[in-house]
């Protein structure tokens, strides 16, 4: 009987769980999306985290490092369950990862209530940057509003007077729109929020954008929706008619697909980002070269943030010489941001989000003909997110 077997399995698992926690290693839980089409992103993060583990020789603070990966299935509830498992059953010391704001928000309480450290390697919801900031929460990425704010600044510099905005109708999408509205000084002539994640056909929105005769179109479409959008932009003949400005849409994961799909229109389009594969920082050269050598492709920004997460954790464990009970010591060490980062030296703000530069990037072909992005200047220097002032820390 299936049920009988399951019961036996449960009993066996319980026996294992009952063993006392071993302190001879650092346990890191890593929650990301490994299934569903968004699994591409999770894979990139996992690859980078594994690479970082190799690069530190699998040890920190004199202890072995053990990483446990969990798949959130693109669903907040599953993410929360997996986080519970990491905290309650596997008894990890750090939980890192998290692509999606909603998964991070659902899961954070489990980690923080248990007194463990939580490190976001991507999601940067405004709640955690502002009122609900927490002493044990750190981000190696950015706050959602920052990147589109930098794009708004670029638009100002380039003399764009009117803008049409298209983004998915979910929290991060709305954060992105709010971000660009914050810094863009021209007029927003139209705005569409599309169904997420289901809607991939943007015919109606593109027709409206064309009719608006705006100077530019701003979009945010992470994952597969980005490819669909770019393609339809080209098919609608909008390339060359209205310049396209994007955030988190064109990255190392989508560029090979664009190249395969012959989306020439994406070449020369602009985006902003805190990091770039060609950023001339020693740690970044090591990371990008190592990643390309090991996996045969360019790392994405998701990968860069994950790579940094490992080094941030290492700086904490090194500082207390492997005494994982010294939470205050580890926190103090992390607050200094004293580790080699792929973005170069940076500081953490009071809310534990990075105060960092944002760069303008353009899509180009590299020497081998692979599509990638090249840095075209600094938009913001040492930029702090607008929610930090709400954080009482």
């Amino acid at each position, binding site marked *: 009987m299936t049920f009988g077997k399951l019961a036996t399995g449960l009993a066996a698992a319980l026996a294992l769980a009952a063993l006392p926690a071993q302190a001879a290693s650092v346990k890191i839980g890593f929650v990301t999306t490994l299934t569903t089409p968004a699994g591409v992103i999770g894979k990139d993060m996992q690859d980078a985290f594994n690479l970082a583990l190799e690069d530190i020789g699998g040890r920190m603070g004199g202890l072995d490092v053990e990483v446990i990966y969990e798949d959130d299935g693109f669903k907040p509830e599953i993410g929360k369950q997996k986080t519970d498992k990491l905290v309650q059953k596997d008894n990890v010391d750090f939980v890192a990862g998290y692509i999606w704001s909603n998964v991070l928000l659902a899961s954070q309480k489990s980690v923080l209530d248990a007194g463990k450290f939580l490190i976001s390697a991507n999601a940067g919801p405004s709640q955690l940057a502002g009122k609900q900031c927490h002493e044990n929460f750190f981000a190696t990425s950015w706050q959602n509003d920052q990147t589109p704010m930098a794009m708004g600044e670029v638009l100002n510099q380039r003399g764009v007077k009117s803008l049409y905005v298209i983004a998915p109708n979910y929290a991060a999408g709305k954060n992105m729109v709010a971000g660009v509205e914050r810094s863009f000084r021209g007029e927003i002539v139209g705005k*569409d929020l599309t169904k997420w994640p289901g809607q991939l056909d943007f015919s109606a929105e593109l*027709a409206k954008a064309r009719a608006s005769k705006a100077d530019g179109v701003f979009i945010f479409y992470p994952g597969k929706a980005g490819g669909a959008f770019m393609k339809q932009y080209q098919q609608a003949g909008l390339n060359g008619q209205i310049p396209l400005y994007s955030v988190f849409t064109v990255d190392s994961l989508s560029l090979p697909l664009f190249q395969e799909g012959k989306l020439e229109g994406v070449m020369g389009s602009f985006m902003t980002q805190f990091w770039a594969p060609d950023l001339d920082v020693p740690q970044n050269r090591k990371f990008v070269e190592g990643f390309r050598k090991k996996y045969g492709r360019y790392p994405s920004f998701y990968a860069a943030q994950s790579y940094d997460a490992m080094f941030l954790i290492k700086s904490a464990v090194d500082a207390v010489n492997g005494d994982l009970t010294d939470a205050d010591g580890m926190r103090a060490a992390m607050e200094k941001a004293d580790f080699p980062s792929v973005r170069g030296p940076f500081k953490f703000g009071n809310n534990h989000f990075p105060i960092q530069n944002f760069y303008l990037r353009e899509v180009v072909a590299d020497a081998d003909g692979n599509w990638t992005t090249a840095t075209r200047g600094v938009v913001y220097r040492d930029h702090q997110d607008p929610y930090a002032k709400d954080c009482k820390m």
Partner: protein
Amino acid sequence: MTWTLLLEQFLNGFQLGVVLFLMAAGLTLVFGIMDMVNLAHGSLYMIGALLCATFTDWTGSFILGVLLALPAVLAVGIAVEVVALRTLYRRDHLDQVLATFGLILFFNELCRIIWGPEGMAIPLPGWLDGSIEILPGMPYPTYRLLVIAVGLAVAAALYWLVVRTRTGMLIRAGASNRTMVGALGVNIGLLFTLIFGLGAALAGLAGMMAAPIVQANIGMGESILIPAFVVIVVGGIGSIRGAFIAALLVGLIDTMGRSFLDLLLGTVMSVTAAETAAPALSAMAIYILMAVVLFFRPQGLFPPQGRR
């Protein structure tokens, strides 16, 4: 708002409608004749798209890709019918929903293992990849025009098949009274397999038509499955004519909602409130349509004649 924009959005809605019709045609036949709820119809849409992407990759031509993928997805459909679904016809709807839900999980995972999680893009030949000016100052994507043409051609062919041929007569008879057709000595098993294969090919074709626009990816079937169900329920289960009209209705309502609802709501409430309410309402629009239609006509708009 200009008249050209209105016309363009009308075309967009029409184009969405014909893709929905390709999906719904097979679904409504299977539903109407075999009384079978098949949630896995969306998987055939996805498989069609992915196969087409692969064949396009091999042959370097989208047209060849479609021509090769069509028989392939027909074969997949027939295989699914013979292996899994045949035993389900006599079961109740509950069993059918659950078992085909299981098929969705299976196919999604299988395709992810075969094609990888990122899916595939389908490059279009140059002559299809741009837009043409259909009216002065109104360019429209060439490929979307082709989709409309293909959709209408298939609709016409189906109409001919159902109304003018012997197979069509059996199909119509089956939709009205299944038992009677069997009693008249028709090989019901073969007829069912044939209809299912046809439905699978149509769903696959819908996927192939959509793929160059939205890319072929895992899980793409689920986002169109529910609207397709809305179409057949609104149209009246088993009715091809109902499916056609309802598909265009759903396509137009969805597109027009996305296009003009914010302007419309902006006239009665503040612009910011309209910006928030419009996407929500337009996402719900087709479900509201369905609830309203079923409330007043519990059998849909065009239920087949003589159906219980």
